[in-house]
């Protein structure tokens, strides 16, 4: 596709330079990089986990409490409800409390689809990605990370990425059973039985509302993304 750039020549040149530089200090000769390749394959296959903070290695109840605590520390708000049946009411209550219109944009996550929304007939729901005019977006997280209060959202028809960033208010629905202690557990969920990672186009790890410190290093909320993030934990 390039007009004048020879990609494979550039690739060979760069890799050649890397190999020459590395060879200049390596002890055993490995001109074909067979050993290096084997070491890399072993590393990729074994995927050693690094140091998981102790604070994240706790029981389920502590994880949920820790998730909500850390989420609030980064200026998210949280609510905990018993079941999906309570979700429409929790959303309308949040909208009322924040003087927001009873209108949301949301994706087609099956867990959200299965909710009986008729309990809150005044709530107007638009299904699909956000076009930037919506005030409130609702997405379902694939998981939460207790150690920093981070919600993890995977893009797709269920949860359009635009909903995470365009509406001023972002409501994240999270099943308490999906709250893990650490990031590693979330990444485990993306891998299949043979250990291959299946990535959505975008995996958004969200820790609080958008912010900027670019004017005199004073943190202000609501930069380009949502000004408010509300996490509703279910269960």
């Amino acid at each position: 596709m390039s007009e004048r750039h020879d990609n494979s020549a550039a690739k060979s040149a760069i890799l050649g330079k890397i190999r020459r530089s590395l060879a200049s200090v390596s002890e055993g000769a490995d001109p074909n990089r067979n050993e290096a390749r084997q070491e890399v394959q072993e590393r990729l296959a074994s995927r050693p986990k690094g140091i998981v903070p102790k604070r994240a290695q706790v029981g389920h109840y502590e994880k949920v409490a820790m998730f909500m605590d850390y989420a609030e520390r980064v200026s998210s708000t949280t609510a905990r409800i018993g079941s999906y049946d309570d979700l429409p009411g929790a959303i309308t209550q949040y909208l009322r409390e924040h003087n927001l219109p009873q209108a949301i944009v949301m994706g087609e996550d099956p867990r959200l689809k299965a909710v009986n929304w008729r309990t809150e007939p005044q709530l107007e729901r638009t299904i699909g990605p956000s076009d930037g005019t919506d005030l409130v977006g609702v997405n379902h997280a694939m998981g939460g990370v207790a150690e920093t209060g981070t919600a993890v959202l995977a893009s797709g028809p269920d949860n359009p990425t635009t909903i995470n960033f365009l509406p001023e208010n972002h409501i994240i629905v999270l099943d308490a059973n999906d709250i893990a202690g650490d990031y590693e557990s979330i990444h485990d969920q993306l891998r299949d039985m043979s250990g291959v990672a299946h990535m959505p186009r975008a995996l958004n790890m969200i820790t609080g509302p958008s912010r900027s410190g670019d004017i005199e290093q004073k943190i202000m909320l609501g930069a380009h993304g949502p000004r408010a993030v509300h996490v509703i934990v279910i269960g």
Partner: protein
Amino acid sequence: MEIKSRDFKKNASDALADATLQKALKNVEAGFIGKRQASVDALPEFEDLRDLGRDIKTHALKHLDVYLEDYEKKVTASGGHVHWAETAQDACEIVRDICHSVGARTMTKGKSMISEEMQLNAFLEADGMEVTETDLGEYIIQLRGEHPSHIIAPAVHVTKDQVEADFRRAHTNLDPNRNLDDPVTLLGEAREVLREKYFAADVGITGANFLVAESGSSVIVTNEGNGDLTQTLSRVHIVLASIEKVIPTLNDLDVFLRLLARSATGQEQSVYTTLSTGPRRTEDPDGPEEYHVVLLDNGRSEMLGTDFEEMLRCIRCGACINHCPVYHAVGGHAYGWVYPGPMGSVLTPSLVGVDKAGHLPNASTLCGRCESVCPMRIPLPKMLRHWREREYERHLNPTPQRWGLKGWAYFARRPKLYHRTMRIGMRVMKYLAPQTALMRRLPAAGGWTKHREFPAPEGKTFQQMWAEREAERGQTKGDAA
């Protein structure tokens, strides 16, 4: 961008005399240091994570060719394209060609320091593209026609009042009498202006904090959300990444995520960590149709296997800059190129040549505070010293300095001569300042006496007095015997 590191001394003097800049620079010390320490203190595993992060990067660099190939395969498998660029110029041309191939006229950009290294904006604008920086800090300095003065806080040298003036000048379609006293209104105004740009953009460019070989993902770690809007709303997403950004696995990424934000801003985690893998899938309702990664070398492959290899572990957190007393004094522009502070003083000579950046390795007290906070445990003072050795070997430092050093070393290497000479020298020096005990005008040390008194010696040297004491003791011993 043009390399002005040779003018460091003048740049620094100008910076020290610039009252507005000095006011703005106070925010560096106030805004980062305490927060970093608090977040580090809150994570008992932090020091061990630093060791582990260092080891992972070292492993990745020793196998860089293989990881890059594996990474490319994964990107390709997810429907993306990898472009290899040996030089900044090549990388610019690759980006331009991608733009041409989709008929792009407008572009939004998230923060990318290598795009500064490439001088990409100027290159694309010369080609007729409209390029808009979307990170608030980058947007501010784009309006000002400046370059970043800090790698994570590009507009740290600008005061709120200056931003207000810039916005009034640039946003002419808004009410000139609007109240912009509160910085939040400035943020809101930028948000509104840039919203339109995201939707209008044909191409969105982001940098990458990491590239994950296991999954073929590019990772950006941000707070504003502009990088995500840039890549989600454009038709084409181009990722600019230098080759050393590749790490093995998602589990390794987690190690770096625990280090990066704490070291950079003192947050336990940045607001948005986004892993992007390929273009929009067939069933996806949003996201870019094309996904390109430009891998830039620009001299890095030649740092491998040298004294400067460890610099390639850098994850661009800015902690060394935030903790550097020289940076606090003069700010980032004085350094004269893309990367300021300690990391810049090591990296710039590597990338542009020490002959063009000779001041930078010298403009450090080697206080070591940078190394003490570097999450990758990069021995920055050691590498600054390595550059000084290169300069000395190549006779790049000023002749008077070399002579001074050589003259002093001549004596220091001859202890007998040294002690005899110094005995006289100190007596003279003391005599020179008989009244004030301070030497206002010490010959050949104008640099010192310009701002400081020179404390006069006590008179005799220690060696002289010690010899006298020993002689006396010998005498006493002799008497006793």
